[in-house]
């Protein structure tokens, strides 16, 4: 394969163009599976999803069926959900608690640490059966950062902590919502397909340029609910408040915005109702007492959409959502989204968090369906890619000082890293 650049990154002329073939080509997707998804750390799940020894959840991670589980000693595992005998899925339940996973085809049975425990009729093998070597396979690496578990198929990859680079600081900021430093995935998962290339979701998750046009009905809803949305005052802004785009290393990046849309932790807006004021004041007082005024303000008065390269998004905005997605062909992706909250949250605060989530996020939210529509319209439009080849992504390029959330600096970070890993 010859090295080929999929971007034209002309820093002198402050022009950045993206070859649209990368959003439509099945051949490029095959290369991505090898050079991106098989080399980067990919999010698997959160420690809070497995409370007790024996707990398991099955899911697809970057399209691969895995069992995310804890063994009898409580250790976390990520096992390929594929029988070593003939390849069948060995665990068919979505979640549960089990000591053993038995393949229904011939009855090969594995412990919840992956080792092969039982093979019916194992005396039929002439040289005996080396059960030790027939444990369920697993990704080469499986590590966590503060409860966020990732797998990596590349044995030579840097450690997760190193890979995450400054993205850790922004994960910390999310976790700081919790007095005990413990966040949990809340029950209820949103899983939906989008008829668009997976990389469009990366862009969309952090692209604040689109908010006024794509989400005007959400802005109306906020206004109808008593949330004043002022027109931008500063030159160059498209949003009511200032927001930055921040590079975090290894292709990770985030937006870091002064909040105008309310936050369950801990910025009251009329949408939450008068009755919520006192509790939100108390949540904020706890933040200030624990973290100091400055850090409390970072936690409560900013919202941040973080991308951990390549396919994990943590949006700490109207609520907190953990969202990951993987390609199902060049023109389709599968999205999984959860809500995240502090473990010690009161019932009323939890209910408010979940309600706030639905004001914006998810397939029935007041904003996400329009994001999905935008991405699907891009994918449909890209049928003309060979005659209209380049996407224009130069917004804000060469700007001095802070990069704005509504510019395309952070999208260029993604594409440069992607291009580099693809061998250009």
């Amino acid at each position: 394969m010859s090295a080929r650049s999929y971007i034209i990154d002309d820093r002198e002329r402050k022009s950045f163009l993206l070859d649209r073939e990368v959003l439509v080509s099945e051949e490029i997707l095959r290369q991505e599976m090898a050079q991106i998804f098989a080399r980067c750390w990919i999010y698997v799940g959160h420690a809070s999803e497995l409370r007790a020894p024996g707990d398991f959840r099955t899911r697809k991670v970057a399209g691969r069926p895995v069992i995310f589980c804890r063994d009898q000693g409580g250790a976390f595992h990520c096992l390929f959900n594929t029988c070593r005998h003939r390849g069948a899925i060995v665990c068919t339940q979505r979640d549960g608690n089990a000591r053993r996973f038995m393949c229904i085809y011939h009855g090969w049975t594995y412990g919840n640490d992956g080792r092969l425990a039982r093979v019916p009729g194992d005396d039929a093998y002439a040289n005996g059966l080396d059960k030790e070597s027939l444990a369920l396979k697993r990704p080469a690496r499986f590590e966590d950062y503060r409860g966020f578990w990732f797998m990596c198929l590349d044995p030579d990859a840097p450690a997760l902590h190193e890979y995450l680079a400054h993205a850790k600081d922004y994960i910390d900021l999310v976790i700081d919502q919790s007095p005990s430093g413990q966040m949990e995935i809340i029950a209820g998962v949103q899983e939906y397909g989008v008829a668009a290339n997976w990389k469009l979701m990366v862009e969309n998750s952090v692209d604040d340029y689109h908010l006024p046009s794509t989400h005007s009905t959400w802005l109306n809803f906020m206004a109808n609910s008593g949330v004043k949305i002022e027109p931008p005052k500063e030159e160059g802004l498209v949003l009511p408040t200032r927001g930055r785009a921040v590079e975090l290393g290894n292709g990770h990046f985030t937006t870091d915005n002064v909040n105008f849309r309310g936050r369950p932790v801990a910025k009251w807006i009329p949408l939450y109702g008068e009755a919520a004021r006192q509790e939100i004041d108390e949540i904020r007082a706890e933040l200030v007492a624990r973290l100091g005024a400055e850090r409390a303000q970072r936690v409560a008065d900013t919202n941040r959409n973080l991308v951990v390269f390549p396919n994990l998004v943590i949006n700490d905005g109207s609520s907190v959502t953990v969202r990951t997605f993987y390609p199902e062909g060049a023109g389709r992706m599968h999205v999984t989204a959860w809500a995240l909250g502090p473990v010690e949250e009161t019932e009323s605060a939890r209910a408010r968090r979940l309600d706030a989530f639905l004001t914006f996020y998810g397939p029935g939210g007041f904003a996400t369906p329009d994001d999905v529509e935008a991405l699907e319209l891009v994918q449909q439009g890209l049928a003309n890619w060979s005659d209209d080849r380049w996407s224009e992504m130069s917004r804000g390029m060469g700007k001095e000082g802070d990069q704005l959330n509504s510019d395309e600096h952070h999208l260029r970070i993604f594409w440069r890293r992607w291009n580099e890993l693809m061998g250009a």
Partner: protein
Amino acid sequence: MTAQIAPQTLVTRAEVEDFLYREATLLDEWRLDEWQELLTDDASYYVPSNDQPQSDHHRALFLVADDRERIRQRVIRILDPNCHAEFPKSRTRRMISNVRILGIEGDLIAVAANFVCYRFRRYERIREYVGAYRYLLRREGDTFRIKERRVLIDAHELGALGSVSFIL
């Protein structure tokens, strides 16, 4: 809701069916202002997440968990041409069957029904939403109003259905 057998003299399945068919027509024809007239002032509309059909929206993430005011805002939103997910509007057609009166308590009638809702958008494949409706209806004169409307989707995940950007 206690599971009493509905006294036939009080409410008949035919009455309930007529009401649900009328509602389905209003939804399929996007006559959402008229649809809202079918709701009580304290109405709610829920679509639980596919993996948590029996859960409580205060404890689990739903797809939709609207109180009356949020329903009003949802209708404003989805009738707005800037609701891109529904402009141009989806064409929907819903089939309702297996209507059952589950019980009556005071002026509230618990009703279950099965549905298939087909959704069509230009250039897109058909989307088939299949599931169960659960209603709490309030008797009002010779008709009903909807106090609670709960939509349980049978699909294990929303998957290719994509979104619930219309009133399902």
